[in-house]
């Protein structure tokens, strides 16, 4: 990938590497309070190694001097087509930023980077799904200009 247009010049966004996985797992565990290393290993296999023209697992790292870099967060998405009757569209299904580093444009840089990948792959729309009570992610995606789409998510309890 080409490097993203940097919202914050101190942030660099690149493809995930195997060495990033412990940082991803640790961040997710701290944020969600649920350890799920096996899940992340599977995600890395599918989104970090396969079909890289339509699957994007990106890492944000800090630019400290010219060499040392610190892990700041990650975003994962892919292009899905014709599910629910939808034409090809970019889906963002995971985004997380180190809590101490929030409000510094890292989430924006990650979203901008994956948007650039989606555009490059030929899609012109991006979607995500947020729980109604997930106030911070909702505020973030809204501030990035995302609006309610034409689909309504439905569910029921299975007896």
């Amino acid at each position, binding site marked *: 990938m080409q490097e993203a247009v940097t919202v914050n010049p101190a942030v660099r966004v690149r493809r995930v590497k195997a060495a990033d996985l412990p940082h991803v797992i640790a961040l997710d565990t701290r944020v969600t309070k649920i350890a799920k290393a096996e899940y992340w290993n599977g995600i890395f296999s599918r989104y970090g190694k396969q079909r890289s023209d339509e699957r994007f697992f990106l890492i944000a790292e800090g630019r400290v001097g010219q060499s040392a870099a610190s892990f700041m967060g990650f975003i994962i998405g892919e292009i899905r087509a014709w599910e629910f009757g939808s034409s090809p569209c970019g889906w963002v299904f995971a985004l997380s930023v180190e809590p101490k580093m929030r409000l510094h444009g890292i989430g924006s840089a990650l979203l901008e980077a994956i948007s650039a990948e989606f555009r490059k792959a030929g899609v012109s729309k991006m979607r995500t799904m947020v729980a*109604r009570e997930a*106030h911070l992610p*909702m*505020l973030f995606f*809204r*501030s990035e*200009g995302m*609006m*309610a789409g034409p689909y309504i998510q439905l569910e029921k309890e299975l007896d």
Partner: protein
Amino acid sequence: MRLQVSTRLAIFAILELTARDGRHLSVAEIGEKYGVSSHHLAKVMHVLGRAGLVRSIRGAGGGFQFAGNARRTTLLDVVQLFEDLTAVEGAAAGDATREERTLSEVLGEIDDIARATLGSITIATLRKLVDRRPAANGQHLKTGVSRRRSSPRP
């Protein structure tokens, strides 16, 4: 969802006051843009002032200034000052029949979505959405408040 004229005015007034950092405007200046009386707008500003969202600047060149945090204040915070968003929940509490409870559940779903939407848009986000639109002529702004009572496009 329909908002009362006072609610829409409150949102517009805050948008005007947050157009530039530290900007202050008189009710006459805001009222002129939206085609409403200073008297009506003064009542709206009083409610916003009590909620700590605006402060009045006294003296020559005075007016009102935004006093909240535009990145933390949501449309829900403003709308709740003027609208009763708990009406459906209140009705559900008094429902006696299965039919009433079922209808209330469906209406509650609509209410929940409306609250979630209003609660997810901050003043800063709304300002950004406004600034992205090409400038419109003044006429439609005036009719938006004084003649049309329907809610803005979502």
